[in-house]
Structure formats: structure tokens, C-alpha cells
């Protein structure tokens, strides 16, 4: 019997139902994607190959769109510079006169600072090399604020590298492919940057919320911030070098402290990526975690002889008259290397040698 002759020959599923099934399946897939999203992870694995592929394709394409805009801007600057050369020259001369004393002071302070560092034997941060890139695409919505840059791992750029303009810090790298990288702006809702207030050295966390002026949160101390204070990176956590300028503090409409970014003074076109490595990666963590620290948790249990000596010493200490006041001279036992010492009440738990309390030894010098 053919199918069309059977009981299902008139059976038709309404299109609305089939569409609804697809919608439900797609909705479930969307929720699952949100749950497994690892955009905010700082490691390279969080930036999946699909994201990297789309960036690699969109970067050059948007570079084509951005090129005419850049040419128009350059032409406008050229004609503007031609027509306003005289006023520009006067302004620059005035600015130069103001900056010359600052330059002399900076040279003197640099010299003094270098002397102090040498005398104190400070371990200063290494010089950070820079890579230049051009912004080719921008997302400026409330839920994501980022730029695609036309330089990637081929220039040594890595995830976490800070990005600056001539004005100050603008963001950090969150994704890298061969020739394109994605920069997360300070204003993105997922951006968190440890900062300090230049005047008071107070620490805070710069938190983006999708608006043009990120918030200053977790400000420590009373009166630590005033309107107009310069905000710099603190370098806490090792993600950014210390002292990169960010902006000035200002009160927001909602009364919270916000930061007017220096990078807003001009368009973000050409940027420089600081090939800065988290300084915590520069030390050998294996060496830090090796003995004696590692030995603290694995100290051997005392032998029978040592346990007897410990018990004896503890018993003698318990019998010591309490009349021996704090000012009286009490003989101190030299820390023994033969094994750990534990209080008499501590029965089976071995304590580290350095952490054991000093055990008083009587004048007779009781030996174990």
C-alpha cells in the first residue's frame, strides 16, 4: 500500500508548527551558547577559532571601508593645516615655551630617580616595546565596545597587551589572530582595570558600563578622590604597567565617581600596543613553590626518640614555676635540626621546625 493511500494521506503539519519547532530548538541553542561563552577568560583558549576566523575575515574587509574615511580625514587635515598655519604656529610656540621648563625638570628628576634606583638596588620594570596598528572596525553598542586592529600575532601581540594612543590608555587585547587583533575598550561592560589616583596614591577599580565615562569603584579611603584628579594605571595584578595615564576623575549624573578619558580627546585611529608581559609570568613559579615552602606540608612525623624528648621537654615546661616572670632570664633552647618540636598536647600532628615554639630547657640540661 502506498503511503498516500494510507491514513496519513491527508496529514499536513501547519507551517506555524514547524517554524515554532525550529524557533524552540534555536532558542535552546542560544541559551546553551550563553552558558558556555568564555569571552571574558584571559587565556587564548577562550577566544575560539570561529571568533578568530570572523575577525580575520572582517578585519581586511572593514579596512577597505575605513580607507576612504582615512583619506578624507587626511585631506581635511592637509587643507586645514594649510589655511590655519599661522594660528597653529602661534599656538605651538606658546605651548613650547610652557613645556621647556617642564622638560628641564623632567631631565633632572630622571637623573635623580636613576640614582635612587641604583642606590636602593630596585628591580625596575623592563622597557616595554611597542607595536603600531590601525583601527579598522568598531563596535560601539551598550553591550560590547571593541575595535578590530590590523596587527596580530605576526607582530608579537598577545592577549592581555595594553593599548594606548598618544593621549593615554584605551584598552587591552582580548583576541589575536595572525594579522588582526581585537581590542576591548576601557568602556566595555566587561572591562576592569586596576587604577590609582595620582594625588593620593589611592587604589580603585575602573569599571566600564558601556557609557563614555567608566566608573571608579572600590575607592579606598575618605577624600581619596577629588574632581580633576589624574587617574593612572596602578599595575596591581601585573596586567598593566604602572603609571599609564587614563583620565581625570569627575562626578557622574548619578553621583558616582567616573573618569573622563584622555583618549576621548581625539579619534581612535592609530594605536600602539604595548608588548607588555605580566610581570608575575617572569618569575619562576616552580622555584618559588619548591622547598622549603613545599616541605611545610610534608614534614615527617617525629620518631619515637624525638617524640619522647618532646614529651619530656613539655612535661618539664609544665612543671616550671609560674613565678618566672616575663622579666626573668629564661634559657632558650636552640632550634634543633634533628626534628620538629611539638607541644605535649599536640600528639600526632607534626609542626614545621620554624613554626614550633621555643622549648625551655632546665639548667641541668636534660637530654633525650
Amino acid at each position, binding site marked *: 500500500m502506498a503511503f498516500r493511500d494510507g491514513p496519513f494521506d491527508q496529514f499536513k503539519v501547519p507551517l506555524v508548527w514547524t517554524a515554532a519547532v525550529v524557533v524552540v530548538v534555536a*532558542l535552546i541553542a542560544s541559551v546553551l551558547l*550563553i552558558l558556555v561563552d568564555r569571552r571574558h577568560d584571559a587565556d587564548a583558549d577562550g577566544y575560539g577559532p570561529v571568533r578568530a576566523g570572523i575577525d580575520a575575515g572582517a578585519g581586511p574587509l572593514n579596512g577597505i*571601508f575605513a580607507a576612504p574615511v582615512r583619506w578624507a580625514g587626511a585631506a581635511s587635515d592637509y587643507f586645514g593645516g594649510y589655511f590655519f598655519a599661522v594660528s597653529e604656529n602661534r599656538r605651538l610656540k606658546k605651548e613650547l615655551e610652557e613645556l621647556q621648563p617642564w622638560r628641564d625638570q623632567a631631565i633632572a628628576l630622571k637623573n635623580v630617580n636613576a640614582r635612587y634606583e641604583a642606590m636602593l638596588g630596585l628591580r625596575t620594570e623592563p622597557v616595554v616595546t611597542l607595536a603600531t596598528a590601525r583601527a579598522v572596525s568598531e563596535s560601539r553598542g551598550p553591550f560590547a565596545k571593541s575595535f578590530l586592529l590590523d596587527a596580530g600575532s605576526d607582530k608579537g601581540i598577545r592577549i592581555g597587551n595594553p593599548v594606548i594612543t598618544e593621549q593615554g590608555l584605551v584598552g587591552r587585547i582580548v583576541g589575536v589572530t595572525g594579522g588582526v587583533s581585537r581590542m576591548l575598550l576601557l568602556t566595555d561592560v566587561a572591562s576592569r582595570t586596576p587604577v590609582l589616583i595620582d594625588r593620593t596614591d589611592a587604589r580603585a577599580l575602573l569599571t566600564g558600563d558601556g557609557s563614555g565615562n567608566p566608573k571608579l569603584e572600590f575607592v579606598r579611603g575618605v577624600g581619596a578622590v577629588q574632581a580633576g584628579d589624574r587617574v593612572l594605571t596602578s599595575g596591581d595584578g601585573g596586567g598593566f604597567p604602572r603609571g599609564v595615564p587614563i583620565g581625570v576623575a569627575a562626578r557622574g549624573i548619578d553621583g558616582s565617581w567616573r573618569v573622563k578619558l584622555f583618549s576621548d580627546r581625539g579619534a581612535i*585611529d592609530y594605536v600602539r600596543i604595548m608588548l607588555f608581559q605580566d610581570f608575575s609570568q617572569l618569575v619562576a613559579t616552580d622555584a618559588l613553590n619548591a622547598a622549603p615552602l613545599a616541605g611545610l606540608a610534608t614534614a615527617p612525623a617525629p620518631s619515637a626518640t624525638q617524640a619522647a624528648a618532646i614529651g619530656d621537654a613539655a612535661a618539664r615546661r609544665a612543671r616550671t614555676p609560674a613565678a618566672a616572670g616575663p622579666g626573668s632570664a629564661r634559657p632558650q633552647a636552640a632550634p634543633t635540626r634533628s626534628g620538629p618540636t611539638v607541644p605535649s598536647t599536640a600528639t600526632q600532628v607534626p609542626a614545621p621546625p620554624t613554626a614550633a615554639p621555643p622549648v625551655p630547657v632546665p639548667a641541668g640540661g636534660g637530654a633525650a
Partner: protein
Amino acid sequence: MRRSMQVRVVGPLQWVIYPALIAMAATLLLATPVELFGLKLPEPVLPMVLAFAWPLIRPSMTAPAVLFGLGVFLDMFWGGTLGLWPLCLLAIYAVVLGSRNLLAGQETQVLFVWYATCTLGAFLLAYLVVSLHAGHAPSLLALLGQVIPTLLFFPIADWMVRRFDDGDVLFR
């Protein structure tokens, strides 16, 4: 003399695929980093227009699948939370599909009210998801900066509904 009669078939290519490609191209174009007198290009969520128009034109299995792809593209291209825009776009599609019988043949003003309601609902959903995911609520002013340009694209949705509704003889 017998004259040949041409029958114009309006298939998914015309009302689903081409508009989706145009929306992607426009999104790419609007992402160009241009700043004139301190103003930047707007960033509307253009696929919301399609999410509203497609279920009104006709129910389809292709449209929600393409909508899902468009949402993933937006997440990837804008560098946002993966799955955010597919969820919001499909939420609009589901609501309009459910109220299709109510909206069929309505005036443009009524359609705009529904479009605005659906768009605001989708943005509210996105706001909640991002707040939960990032542990921090985005700025409402910044949100308005994306909602208003998206609302201004309603005429395209209205045009699509009038252009493609019953365009396929199979659905007359």
C-alpha cells in the same frame, strides 16, 4: 500568436537570504570607525527588522535558522556575549509568530507599536543577560543610543511586509 507569460516566483532567496545578506553588509559598513565633529555612526541591530517582518510575511523554517545565524554573526563581529543576539532575535520572532493572526492586515501605526514593544522587550532581555553575565549593569543612556536607531528602521520592516506578504502564490 501565443504570448509567453512569466510567473515571478518569490522564494526564500528573495525574502530571507537577500535581506539577511544586506543586513550583514550594512552592519559591516556601519562598523567603520568614522568620527565627525565628535559624532560616530549609529549601531542599530538591523536583523531586528527582519525578526519582526519575517513571521508576518509567512511562517517558515528557514527564517528562524537564518535569524540564528545572523545573531551569531552579530555576537562574533561585535565581540559580545555568544548567544546573546540569537536569543533576542528569536524571542522577537517567537512573539510575532504567536501573534501573527492578530497582526495580519493591521495598519502601519499598529505594526509600529508592536515593533517598538518587541524591540524594547528584546533589548531588555539583552540588558538582563549582559548584566548577569558581566556582573555589572550597562548604562541606560548607552542602551538608548542603540534602541533609537533600531526603532528608526521600522519603515523597512513595514515595506517588507507589504512587499512580500502573499507574494508567493502558494500562500494566497
